């Protein structure tokens, strides 16, 4: 059983919702990311999602776009991200780590080379925004060889047949994108999400987590009520942005406060 599957199973058994926390690896420096990862866990994060910086992050809103730009300036790359995960694993062997990024940097490294190196580094899964199942066979096979989960997105626009295709292909969890839009968009409608997630759950063989547009305890609670958990990203990346000119302990403190308030919100369910 993968680290993600067992983590989510334990949460479900305990009747708790999963909190997945996203930051961009290398934003603004690799050292800051490592500190932040440990802080995210301390404050109640169940799964860490690390953004792999890309020059053209098409699915991201302005906040995470800037995170990618800062990370690239700070020397981020796929290889640097894998090295960072290895570092993280020296102190933490329990918290699952999902890499989220775009196809080209992974394709450039080579799918087979990447999958082997990722497994060795202690990565648990990959989410590739621009690789829908139609184009991901080759990468998926390499990930499977190394027992890495492949996380797929489902969207408000996904029709019944695609929901089934993607649920059947998914390993680890299914990630439902709660809004039509880029990361960090507003206007989340919890009723719409609930209806959609119900349909997805009917087809899913894995837990269903919801992300995009969740920024605080209130929105997290609303969405988690109908799903297995939430993914929060832009709100944390806004805090990490301050690391460029604010002492790291202060940034970590602010991060901790937000994560634990969201954790608390989820635990009230």
């Amino acid at each position, binding site marked *: 059983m993968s680290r993600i599957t067992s983590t989510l199973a334990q949460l479900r058994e305990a009747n708790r919702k999963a909190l997945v926390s996203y930051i961009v690896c290398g934003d603004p420096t690799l050292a800051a990311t490592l500190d932040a990862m440990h802080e995210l866990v301390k404050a109640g994060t169940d799964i860490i999602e690390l953004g792999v910086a890309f020059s053209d992050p098409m699915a991201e809103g302005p906040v995470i776009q800037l995170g990618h730009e800062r990370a690239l300036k700070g020397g981020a790359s*796929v290889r640097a991200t894998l090295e960072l995960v290895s570092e993280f694993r020296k102190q933490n062997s329990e918290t699952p780590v999902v890499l989220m990024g775009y196809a080209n940097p992974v394709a450039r*490294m080579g799918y087979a080379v990447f999958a082997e190196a990722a497994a060795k580094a202690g990565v648990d899964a990959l989410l590739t925004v621009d690789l*829908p199942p139609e184009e991901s066979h080759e990468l998926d096979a390499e990930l499977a060889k190394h027992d890495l989960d492949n996380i797929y997105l489902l969207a408000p*626009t996904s029709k019944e047949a695609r929901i089934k295709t993607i649920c059947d292909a998914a390993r680890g969890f299914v990630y439902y994108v709660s809004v*039509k839009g880029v990361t960090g968009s507003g206007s989340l409608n919890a009723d719409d999400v609930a209806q959609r997630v119900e349909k997805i759950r009917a087809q899913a063989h894995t837990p269903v987590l919801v992300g995009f547009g969740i920024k605080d305890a209130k929105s997290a609670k609303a969405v988690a009520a109908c799903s297995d958990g939430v993914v929060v990203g832009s709100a944390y990346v806004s805090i990490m942005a301050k690391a460029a000119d604010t002492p790291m302990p202060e940034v970590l403190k602010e991060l901790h406060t937000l994560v634990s308030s969201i954790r608390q919100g989820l635990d009230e369910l």
Partner: protein
Amino acid sequence: MSTDKIDYSAVPDTRGHFGPYGGRYVSETLMHALDELDEIYQRLKGDASFQEEFDKDLAHYVGRPSPLYEAERLSKKIGGARIVLKREDLNHTGAHKVNNTIGQALLAKYTGKQRVIAETGAGQHGVATATVAARLGLECVVYMGAEDVQRQALNVYRMKLLGATVVPVHSGSKTLKDAMNEAMRDWVTNVDTTFYIIGTVAGPHPYPQLVRDFNSVVGREARAQSMDRFGRLPDALVACVGGGSNAIGLFHPFLSDDSVAMYGVEAGGDGLETGRHAAPLNDGIPGILHGNRTYLMEDDDGQIIETHSISAGLDYPGVGPEHAWLKDIGRVNYVAATDNEAMHAFRELTRVEGIMPALESSHAVAHGMKLAAESDPDDIILVNLSGRGDKDILTVAKIDGIDV
């Protein structure tokens, strides 16, 4: 690789693949809209009344067919082959881009969407989109890299006069690729109400196919005009390649004609050896960007690198996936012309023939001139004059140190 027996009309396959290129590399939110577009397009492209409507617009609104003009003075001056120009610069709005926007606007009409968006580099596609939007009464938003907004100020104002909103994009390199990222973000957000009119033969399937089909009128006309005027096909075709829509439009109807050589001319910038250029087919490697797999300009980590070209319309790190495939199978030769060579061609054509080409098209003219000099006097070299140079006057004046 042998190109015998390739059925060029059979590509792309139903999933948009040209060999290992093309495809549909987008986030899940867009998959349904692309399925829908594909379904509509595959149905309408064989529909006689749709074609009739398209042809009628091309004739009466665009002014087609565009002439085939033999540049006799230029040919004589070079002292080689006969240079013939396909005059896409004479189209309404001044470039081949309008062929595609007319077609996609018709598709938009069938989808019932009231808002269109576009990305633009030189501004020609933005102008062509704003034009058809004005004509159909559609809301129009054009994304344009902030740097391009500066260097193509005339086209920006043209779009505004036509009623479009021009949004300068400040992320990344502030050029065409970033404009395309931003247009994609808009589309993801407004997918229910918005039709994305992509300006080149790139992007996710079915765009490379439908943009090619709409621009193939260029090649079909050129083929018929050549037979009519010269009693035979040209010996070589030359077209500039950024994303590659004018080139594929010219080339496609000739692909099965083995006697016709083809040259796609990329932007050589300061020279291929300097790395400062926009020539992925000459000096890039296959990768994934903007919804398709194709040749890209990228670094060892797979990050897309900044390109350089004097012409905003060619300043793009990728290229249409069909070109990538035509390169690999050896059917088309992809070469490059530098900024200086393009500028020289711009001045020559302007002074010798009284035709001012767009800086994009000047790359094709530059290679056409080079080829003509090396060819037999009886050879016919057909150069696609994809757009006119009015929009570039400020850029050229700046090079000449003149404040207009």
